[in-house]
């Protein structure tokens, strides 16, 4: 039995429900997943409350390893972020190919925008996009910018209820059932790339970490079987994550 601290996107999208039974049947190792935002998931592992972390914020992951809390980071898979908003599109950004320009337009027109505000991987991606738009979100924020401090699904619920824009990972969006008037308005910009990495928590820091079992899980995820299982997971016929454990530099 191992405990994995991971992000809400991997759980809310249904990925783990799909792939974990395959792993457990093959190795007889039970995997318990605690879903939190990336920052919180890394903190959980820092305290020694998880054996493996699977998150999506490369800089934070590398810092975690550099601090000695993780053994090594391995790329696993990617998907992408999408900018979601009401179909009526009050900011007029539908179909734009430059996501930073779309962010700038939303800010300029003061159209409601829902921010995760929870140090998650998606939150840090959102903050990076404001910077890419040359905007200081702390300086321009007003009632239109709504930090909710909750998970991805909750953010989509809130955005749907108030006709706001929101940045989401594609996996959660595909698995989300309460779409109402929301739709994908901007996608495809290479800055929306969203890489996931997996890290074994360092048993030298936390001796109770189940390093052997954790390593089996990581090797399986990054190996041919796990990679195929990730690629095979589809919602409505569409793949949710693209396996890329062997991609150089991912």
């Amino acid at each position, binding site marked *: 039995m191992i*405990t994995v601290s991971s992000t*809400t996107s991997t*759980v*809310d999208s249904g990925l*783990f*429900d799909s792939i974990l039974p395959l792993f457990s049947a093959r190795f007889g190792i039970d995997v*318990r*997943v*605690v*879903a939190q935002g990336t920052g919180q998931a890394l903190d959980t592992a*820092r*305290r*020694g*409350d998880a054996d493996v972390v699977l998150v999506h914020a490369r800089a934070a992951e590398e810092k975690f390893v550099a601090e000695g809390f993780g053994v090594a980071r391995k790329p696993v898979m990617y998907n992408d972020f999408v900018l979601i908003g009401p179909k009526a599109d009050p900011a007029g950004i539908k179909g734009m190919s430059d996501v930073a320009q779309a962010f700038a337009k939303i800010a300029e027109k003061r159209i409601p925008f829902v921010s995760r505000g929870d140090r998650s991987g998606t939150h840090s991606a959102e903050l990076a996009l404001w910077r890419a738009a040359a905007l200081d979100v702390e300086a321009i924020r007003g009632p239109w910018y709504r930090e909710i401090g*909750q*998970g*991805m*699904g*909750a953010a*989509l*619920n809130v955005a749907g209820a108030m006709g706001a824009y929101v940045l989401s990972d594609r996996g959660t969006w595909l*698995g*989300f*059932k*309460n*779409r109402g008037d929301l739709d994908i308005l901007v996608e495809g910009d290479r800055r929306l790339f969203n890489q996931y990495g997996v890290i074994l928590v360092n048993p030298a820091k*936390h001796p*109770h970490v189940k390093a052997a079992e954790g390593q089996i899980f990581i090797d399986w995820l990054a190996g041919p079987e796990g990679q195929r299982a990730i690629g095979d997971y589809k919602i409505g016929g569409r793949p949710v994550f693209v396996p890329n454990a062997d991609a150089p530099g991912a």
Partner: protein
Amino acid sequence: MTFTDALAAALDLVLGLDPRFTEVVGLSLRVTLSAVFLAAVIGLPLGALLGIARFPGRSGVIVLVNAMMGLPPVVAGLLLFLLLSRSGPLGSLGLLFTPGAMIAAQTLLVLPIVVALTRQTVEDLWTEYRDHLHSLGMTGARAVPTLLWDARFALATALLAGFGRASAEVGAVLIVGGNIAGYTRTMTTAIALETSKGDLALALGLGFVLLVLTLFVNGAAYGASRIGARAAG
């Protein structure tokens, strides 16, 4: 999403008897009933003693216990989380993200209710019976079993109040349990999860099931106390 969808989802859950669903219901009942049981074992004698004992600072203790009835579940969860985390003082127990941690958290929430309501009930009885019990040679702690027995119907209501608080809360079990599928997922954390996945019909359906379960538990307790009262004449 309409209420009809939610009702249909609730019926599907109950009639389908999906093992993942029965697991969630089973865990909810196990955690909550264990917490109420533990709180009763600790809280009933403690509350009774507090009802009859006289010591300096007693008023302060009573106010504190009464105030603890309002302890926010999320705070109780956070306190236990820090205690049980591997980096916390009780980390070596390895209890975080297990049902054991959830039982501990809910016990912490139910205990003040049991102690406070027992204290009040027993104190009232004690005022009424003191001379009689004294004449039978029962003083101080020796009167506690008699007082608890005589107050049993009122105390059953106190336990039901505790059950209600524990079965309804989500903040504490979410933090110390981690909402792990098939292991620490309860009715309330499942409702929170389905809401965040946007499956509002399923979330509300689970809510209906939880309400009906609560109704059953209360109905059974009321029935038992009526039968008991009749038997006692």
